[in-house]
């Protein structure tokens, strides 16, 4: 015969276990929802309500190591209101092309691989007052900091040519659409990484003027 107090204790413990399970499950679910909301609050996709505008993508080809311009009509954020989001949307479309099954430069990841693009005034190399005024003005040269996702770098095919083409096509595409961007630096998950996938140097600053090749010529 089980004593009554043990039966009561068992029922109370069982009820507490069930209640804790339900509570933990709900907290897990709400944490997951918060994480998804946090991700989706960043504009990973260009807003569809924006009018479509032509954007020039410098598309890489592994076959001949070239960058070829391709003009697409894309809905893009305003250049004046949010140039960083505009740059991100354009680069996202470029990486979507690379993630497509028939890509000439296959790289998995797509648009979500570009986490942020920050535009900053170009650091001073020339200390003259005129140069400082130019940098301080709206039309001064800018440095773009492109923050890529860790999964993009981890899954990028390894090789000098393929890594170089990815880096140069990003630089050349930024220059083609936002000519004020004079230089580009890369981060991966917010941190500096030595190389993209074992070869292309990600510690240096890339000049966009050097990324743009002559017509149909390997950079």
């Amino acid at each position, binding site marked *: 015969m089980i004593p009554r107090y043990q039966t009561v204790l068992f029922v109370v413990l069982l009820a507490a276990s069930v209640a804790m399970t339900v509570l933990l499950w709900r907290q897990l679910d709400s944490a997951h929802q918060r994480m998804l909301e946090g991700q989706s609050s960043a504009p990973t996709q260009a807003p569809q309500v924006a009018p479509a505008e032509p954007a020039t993508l410098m598309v890489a080809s592994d076959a001949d190591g070239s960058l070829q311009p391709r003009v697409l009509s894309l809905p893009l954020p305003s250049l004046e209101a949010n140039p960083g989001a505009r740059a991100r949307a354009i680069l996202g479309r470029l990486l979507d092309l690379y993630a497509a099954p028939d890509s000439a430069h296959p790289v998995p990841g797509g648009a979500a691989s570009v986490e942020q693009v920050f535009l900053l005034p170009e650091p001073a190399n020339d200390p003259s007052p005129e140069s400082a005024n130019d940098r301080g003005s709206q039309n001064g040269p800018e440095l773009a900091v492109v923050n890529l996702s860790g999964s993009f770098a981890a899954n990028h095919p*390894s090789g000098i*040519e393929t890594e170089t083409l990815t880096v140069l096509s990003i630089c050349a595409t930024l220059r083609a659409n936002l000519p004020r961007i004079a230089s580009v630096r890369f981060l991966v998950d917010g941190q500096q990484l030595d190389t993209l996938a074992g070869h292309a140097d990600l510690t240096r600053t890339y000049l966009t003027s050097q990324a743009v090749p002559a017509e149909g010529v390997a*950079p």
Partner: protein
Amino acid sequence: MAGGDGRRSRVRGRKSWVVVLIWLSMAALAQAQTAPAPRYTVVLDAAHGGADTGGHSGAWLEKDLTLALSVRLRSLLAARGIAVVTTRENDTDVDHVHRDELANHANAQACISLHASLSGTGVHLFTSSLAPAQPARFQPWLTAQAPWINRSLALAGVLNSALQHAGLGVTLGRTALPVVDSMACPAVAVELSPEGSASAPSNRSPVDSLNDADYQARVAEALAAAIVEWRSQSAGAGQP
């Protein structure tokens, strides 16, 4: 007495001349032994190694192919009387600073960094994307390649001609590769990709193509021929 003294002094004078001549000839011999003719040296850098596998796909590892190509090319160059310095001889992880130290101490006439990739086709030749610079007494380590850019481009041209002459597809480019950017010698990164020429079997996988011993041998032979040609073009040119 006076005649005897004169004969003795003449004999002593002849002996002195003989001693001086022997001393001079021995000094000349010693000089010849201490200053040998400058060696023609090539640095072969088999990329990656150890825990750094480089590119990989299944059992295929970039580090294995670069080492195999380095060993093959070293034999071909040694057979042609060229001194070869390699940055690794086995499966060890050598950081790029140590590779550059080896290359720069070798005072080499050509530095070849060997890579392999499953992307693209043919052989990719890359020179540093640094802007050319004037030689300076002290060159920054990270941009040590800058004064050598023009000679590196010339070396890439010679390699390109030899590879094309061997019927291999070639792509030329510039890149930011830390190991090449710090080399103080004419330096080219050679990346072997699956064969893309018309003679290559079309149904072969990229891994099979890269593992093809005949393909590797043709590339190594072409590279060795190019380096011999480079030696004939650049005899005596040891500075940027």
